[in-house]
């Protein structure tokens, strides 16, 4: 039983449409609350984890074990004077961090979270095209960064935005091709053990994913994981930030909570990217033993991926932009195409 329909039934005295609307609203808020809380824990874990690797202690002053450090940081950012650079494009400057933030939040509503005992399926959006919607939103995200970069007319920010665009162009094509291979594989009943749900929705893909697609097409998993690292733009692909070269890249002229929103966007993208990899390639909420705990399966897979991402983050130097563009077009794209051809052969000839 879907959580959405449960809520729908509870509010049925309001009439069909109003109750459905309220149910949808409540579930969205619940999902966003879950995301926010897990996000705070994630940043805390990141800071402790990074500190351990770097022989430091990490946050331990604010609250028990420094758990409230992020709250303190957020309050500090909110309390900062909002400094607006001269000669900015006002509208673009103000809207850029909001675009980044909003696209991340909306993406989290689309994710199929799987079932959890009494609550039933936690998925909020039951659309037939969530896969397309998801990647549409993901391609809106860099617009915030680019707008933020070029609206301030700072040379650092413009160079950062240029790097960001070059980076996005070079990895998005292989990313989408590797997703296409997923759609092809998941539409065949012999892979999925009979069930062929709509393979253009994330929920449908995961329901079909009896064998994790990472096992069927490991090449696609590699390409997609690298693309997600690049999408989140952390080291080694933090080209639009390039903190040792371009001060802070595209976000150089931002301060206070506006900068904080970009930062949330970055961490949120690490989290979202891990969700997507575990959904598309590692079986999502399907576990080794079929049970009501799909959500926990998904969460465990995601957290392991997030920790791997953090390990990559702290241990690798930054790639040079021209090297990355070469990497994208000369290695990732051919790999993605090989993966696509392989998926086609697999679907057509292997029974």
């Amino acid at each position: 039983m879907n959580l959405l329909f449960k809520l729908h039934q509870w509010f049925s005295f309001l009439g069909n449409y109003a109750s459905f609307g309220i149910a949808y609203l409540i579930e969205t808020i619940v999902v966003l609350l879950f995301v926010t809380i897990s996000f705070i824990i994630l940043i805390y874990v990141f800071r402790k984890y990074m500190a351990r690797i770097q022989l430091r202690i990490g946050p331990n002053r604010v609250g028990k074990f420094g758990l409230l450090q992020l709250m303190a940081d957020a309050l500090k950012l909110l309390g900062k004077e909002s400094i607006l650079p001269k000669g900015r494009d006002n509208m673009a400057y103000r809207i850029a961090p909001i675009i980044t933030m909003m696209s991340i939040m909306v993406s989290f509503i689309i994710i199929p979270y799987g079932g959890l005992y009494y609550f039933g399926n936690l998925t909020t959006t039951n659309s037939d095209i969530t896969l397309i919607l998801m990647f549409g939103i993901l391609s809106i995200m860099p617009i915030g960064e680019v707008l933020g970069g070029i609206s301030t007319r700072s040379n650092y920010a413009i160079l950062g935005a240029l790097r960001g665009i070059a980076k996005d162009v070079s990895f998005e094509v292989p990313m989408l091709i590797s997703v296409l291979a997923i759609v092809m594989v998941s539409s065949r009943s012999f892979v999925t053990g009979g069930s062929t749900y709509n393979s253009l929705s994330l929920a449908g893909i995961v329901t079909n994913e009896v064998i994790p697609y990472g096992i069927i097409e490991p090449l696609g998993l590699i390409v997609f994981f690298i693309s997600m690292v690049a999408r989140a733009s952390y080291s080694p692909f933090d080209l639009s930030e390039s903190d040792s070269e371009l001060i802070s890249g595209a976000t150089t002229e931002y301060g206070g909570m506006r900068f904080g929103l970009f930062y949330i966007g970055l961490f949120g993208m690490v989290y979202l990217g891990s969700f997507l990899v575990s959904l598309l390639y590692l079986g999502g909420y399907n576990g080794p033993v079929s049970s009501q705990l799909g959500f926990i399966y998904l969460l465990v897979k995601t957290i392991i991926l997030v920790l791997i991402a953090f390990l990559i983050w702290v241990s690798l130097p930054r790639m040079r932009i021209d090297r990355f563009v070469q990497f994208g077009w000369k290695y990732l794209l051919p790999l993605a195409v090989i993966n696509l051809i392989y998926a086609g052969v697999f679907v057509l000839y292997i029974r």
Partner: protein
Amino acid sequence: MPHYTELNIGPVHPSIHGIFNFKLILNEEIIQDVKVTLGFLHRNAEKLSELNLYADNIIFFDRMNYIDAMNMELGYLMSVEKLTGIEPPERAQWIRMIMVELNRLAARLVGMGSLGLDLGMLTPFFHTFKEREKIQRIFTEASGGRQEVNYFSVGGVYQDLTEQMINDIKNFLPQFKKNLEDMYNMFIHSEIFWQRNRGIGIIEPEMALDYGVTGPALRASGIPYDVRKDAPYLFYDRVNFDIPISHEKDNFGRFMVKVEEMRQSIRIIEQCLDKITDGPFFNPQGKKSLMLRIKGNGEAFSRVESDAGEFAVYVNGNNTTKPNRVHARSPGLRNLSLLPVISKGLMIADFIAVVGGLDPVVGEVDR
């Protein structure tokens, strides 16, 4: 007509080690020209040295290459000792040698860590600085200072190395050897590190000689010139060590030379600890009560191999308690003067890596 952008790197910038200003003339990301502005940290050290007593001037030299303070002191004191004829006793020489090599290790660690930082890898920085902190603890035991140590004095050292300090150093070395390899692997096992460093900032040997480049930058161009070997001072002729060279000529070669020199430094320290003799640790002529009356006549010139290269000091005295003229040859300035030449046609990211590889310390460049 191409459109050029001007980009200021510095004086305040995350990856500038100190305060320079580089004005990059960019064609998109490609550097067309670099204009270097120096002097933000000019403290008039040479002129100030003329106004102060011989023994007092050590602090100005401490603050030249502040991460390699022992070598700076040594360079000055060797000149003063030549000028005044106050020779340090044998034990003092050994102590100086140990300290100088320890400080070379510390300075190289800073260079290594900040190169990683410039390339966008944060982790090795903390590892190198932890090791450096251990060295600085030894310095604190010996002199009371972590970085600006002020340890050497005219005709000796400020304080004898006790048995415990020698044990500290002996305990430090084996674990440092292991940690050094770990840190080295942290860099070298990353493909991106190779990509970022190979083939950028190429210094041809002839060019290096023309510009007076010394130190690891020269040795990475394939010229085995090291003051410790070519004009031995202290007891460098009594210990075995090799001068590593590289024929890569690029940033990667410089990094490898620096790491190999750290291994050689460990070798030198180990030999010093074996060969150190008992005896006085300062010359009675340079004891504290006589320090204010040290007079020098004539001129003296001495050179040492510091972290960045050949550091030389010229002292001219006219039989008073203050020097008449003090001049320091800054290796960092020579290395930096090559930067506009070698960075043409590089990308911004490479430029930052080249600056990190040359590792100039502004205190010494500007003096």
